[in-house]
């Protein structure tokens, strides 16, 4: 196809951007999952190594990363539920935009809630 078909970005709306988000978060989670299975596998090999790796997760910087990951999972999860509703509810396609904004609200609330808890735990050093 000729190069000229590129041009400005398509200005999609909620539907398209939520799909971009869904796709990106899906891939991010997938790669995390691969790593996560690997690190968890260490429990089978050497408990100390496992603890060492896990303690890395407890570092405040990593906590931010975890926070991001959980936010991604939550977005993917909530939006995934929205997609399922859109697919199976009779009124789904009609109310997709409302559903999207509901997802956003729930997501923000959940992320803020989780963040408050998780980040305080991480930065106050918790029990250990």
């Amino acid at each position, binding site marked *: *196809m*000729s*190069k*000229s*078909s*590129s*041009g*400005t*970005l*398509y*200005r*999609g*709306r*909620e*539907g*398209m951007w939520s*799909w971009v988000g869904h796709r990106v978060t899906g891939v991010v989670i997938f790669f995390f999952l691969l790593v996560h299975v690997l690190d968890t596998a260490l429990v089978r090999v050497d408990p100390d190594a496992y603890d060492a790796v896990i303690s890395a997760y407890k570092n405040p910087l990593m906590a931010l990363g975890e926070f991001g990951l959980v936010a991604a999972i939550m977005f993917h999860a909530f939006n995934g539920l929205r*997609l399922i509703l*859109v*697919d199976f509810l009779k009124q*789904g*396609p*009609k109310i*997709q935009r409302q559903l999207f904004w509901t997802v956003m609200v729930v997501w923000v609330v959940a992320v803020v809630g989780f963040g408050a808890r998780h980040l305080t735990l991480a930065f106050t050093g918790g029990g250990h």
Partner: protein
Amino acid sequence: MSTNVAEPASKVEIKAGSGDAVESFDITLKVRRFDPEISDEAHWDVYKLTMYGTDRVLDALHRVKWEEDGSLSFRRSCAHGVCGSDAMRINGRNRLACKTLLKDLDTSKPITVEPIKGLPVEKDLIVDMEPFFQSYREVMPFLITKGHEPAKERFQSQEDRERYDDTTKCILCAACTSSCPVFWTDGQYFGPAAIVNAHRFIFDSRDDAGDMRLEILNDKEGVWRCRTTFNCSEACPRGIQVTKAISEVKQAILTRSI
């Protein structure tokens, strides 16, 4: 059947019509140009025009073509949104140029006009529609009936007729298919327009080949590639609930297999 309406009054009070003269304003039109006879690269051309309140993007393009640069090429015919010739990307979204009033756009910024995405560009705003029509033809977009043709019309209840009304409105403008991020990727996806036109027959009570069409759309390039991004529904100039139609086809395939 037409309902009977009360005979209208012979004389009524007419409100003093909104007598405002049509206002004029200046716009900047940024058009993506491409002519392989001149260069392999596309570029933007910018035009400054004075236009009027009832003018549409198509009028602006005509103004350029007729008064400034005759080589600007685009398709158009009916000029009122029924023939489907002039789908293009206006300010980043697929629209019909003849249905997009300039005054409804932000005229303080340049208005960008580009060809629709995902189909090979031939020249300026003209793309090759053949892949699009190819998909359309593949879904068997025609009535298929078994048995004898009745001497009179086939009967169809008003409810049955209403069932597929929405998808009969399609003008094959390709605004939907070329707004679909999945179609952009490799152009193999059947695309929303083909599905809309299959839907029109799948849900027509007179048709007997719904199963065959469902089978066709159960293909790996069929309905399952739709990721419900809704760009198609938003782009459709006929207001067809495209994603809903796709959903209904998905569901029909599911119920048929289970």
